[in-house]
């Protein structure tokens, strides 16, 4: 039975793969159609990179605040951080982008699409990172807390010298993975007309009707960003396993 399932899976995957290769390779490419638009694609790629890096930095800050809130001894910050994280994780990013831009940013009169996009994306990714960070802190065993107390470290010193350094090693692989997600998620910002990579590719397609020529470079452009991160994440994971 098991053999049959794996055979079936192999066949389905191989056929699908061959079909895609056949479609992609079989297409009659007319690269000259998108010739005038290489600059647009490249600027879209740079915008995606810029949005992602800015959102990475801001999301780490947000995640720190949320993690501190969730681990706080006090109820109110714990409750607020919990509500925030649940809200963000329980609703679609697309909805958050629409609400964030058309309701909140509009209300406060902020109309930088790039800026709003970065903030929304950071708020989204920060909630996921916060869950990763909290897991990391909680995974450091309670015996480490006991030792730290025994030698007379204060709570703050224990976090700083004992808990955080160990937690950081544990959360690095998953955090790298979250950064790769962030890059991919930034493609949704086209709905508020941030001129990022996906939006540029869509425009090239609608101007030229050359779907293959517009979207294949887009796919490769995203892979160029996410693949090294995914390799890094795997590498960190391996090293962590080796250390323990």
């Amino acid at each position, binding site marked *: 039975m098991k053999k049959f399932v794996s055979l079936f899976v192999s066949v389905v995957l191989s056929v699908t793969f061959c079909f895609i290769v056949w479609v992609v390779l079989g297409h009659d490419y007319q690269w000259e159609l998108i010739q005038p638009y290489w600059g647009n694609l490249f600027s879209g790629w740079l915008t995606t990179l810029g949005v992602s890096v800015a959102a990475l930095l801001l999301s780490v800050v947000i995640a720190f605040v949320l993690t501190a809130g969730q681990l706080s001894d006090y109820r109110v910050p714990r409750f607020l951080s919990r509500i925030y994280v649940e809200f963000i994780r329980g609703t679609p990013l697309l909805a958050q982008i629409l609400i964030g831009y058309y309701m909140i940013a509009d209300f406060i009169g902020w109309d930088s699409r790039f800026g709003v996009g970065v903030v929304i994306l950071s708020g989204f990714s920060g909630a996921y990172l916060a869950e990763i960070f909290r897991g990391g802190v909680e995974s450091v065993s309670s*015996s480490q807390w006991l*030792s730290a107390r*025994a030698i*007379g470290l204060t709570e703050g010193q224990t976090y700083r010298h004992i808990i955080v350094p160990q937690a950081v090693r544990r959360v690095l692989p998953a955090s790298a993975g979250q950064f790769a997600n962030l890059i991919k998620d930034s493609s949704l910002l086209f709905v508020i007309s941030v001129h990022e990579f996906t939006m540029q590719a869509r425009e090239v397609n609608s101007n030229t009707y050359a779907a293959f020529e517009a979207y294949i470079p887009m796919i490769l452009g995203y892979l160029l960003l996410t693949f090294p991160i995914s390799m890094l994440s795997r590498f960190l994971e391996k090293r962590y396993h080796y*250390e323990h």
Partner: protein
Amino acid sequence: MSIEISQLSKRYGATLAVDSVSVNFYEDDQVVALIGPSGGGKSTLLRLLGGLESPDSGKVILDGSAVPAEEEALRQFRMGNGFLFQSFNLFPHLSAIENISLPLVKVHGWAENDATDRAKEIADRFGLVEHLEKSPGQLSGGQQQRIALARAVAHKPGLLFLDEPTSALDPEMKAEVLDLIEELRLSGQRIVLSTHEMGFAKRSSDKVLFLSGGRNLESGQSAAVFENPQSKELRDFLAKVMKW
């Protein structure tokens, strides 16, 4: 040290780990041993004596002063003492020498250089010099426990609490660690320990306390208690642990 414990209790959920223990060791003993079956409450009592946990009721007076209840005073109390756990509890992200010097620098305010010198001095005495740069994961159990012991005594603690210091070790490593403890005793270190090493407890402790089911079933001068156990429980326990 003198130890006065009155009606001390500590509960974990449904388990009464320490059940109204009272004891009066008024003399200035150098070594006090806690013995008894696993789950008898030795570790819990030791954590209460060492100020790592607070009792639900009752109180402890060491050398005439009460173990404090308020957190900062408790921290000061722990700083002056040393604690060693059954499972070593080294900090895995720090090298052996950093494990020893970190408390000296962060808790006791020593200069880095002085702390490093002190760590080397103790490592030399404990036969650990060649292991100082290794991380705990690269050391054997016996080496880890000796590093942990070095960490616990580096600041010349008034009292040294040892919780089954050799229970997790192979016989050969047990002997290494017991030798070091004996050496500390001979140099005048005051020690409260829990142990299953009856030979060691009999030979090296002045007073002994037999704990079973969280209760103090028998206590007093070691010589008398071991030679002439009064309670059936202690006679059975000694017969069992001495059998092999």
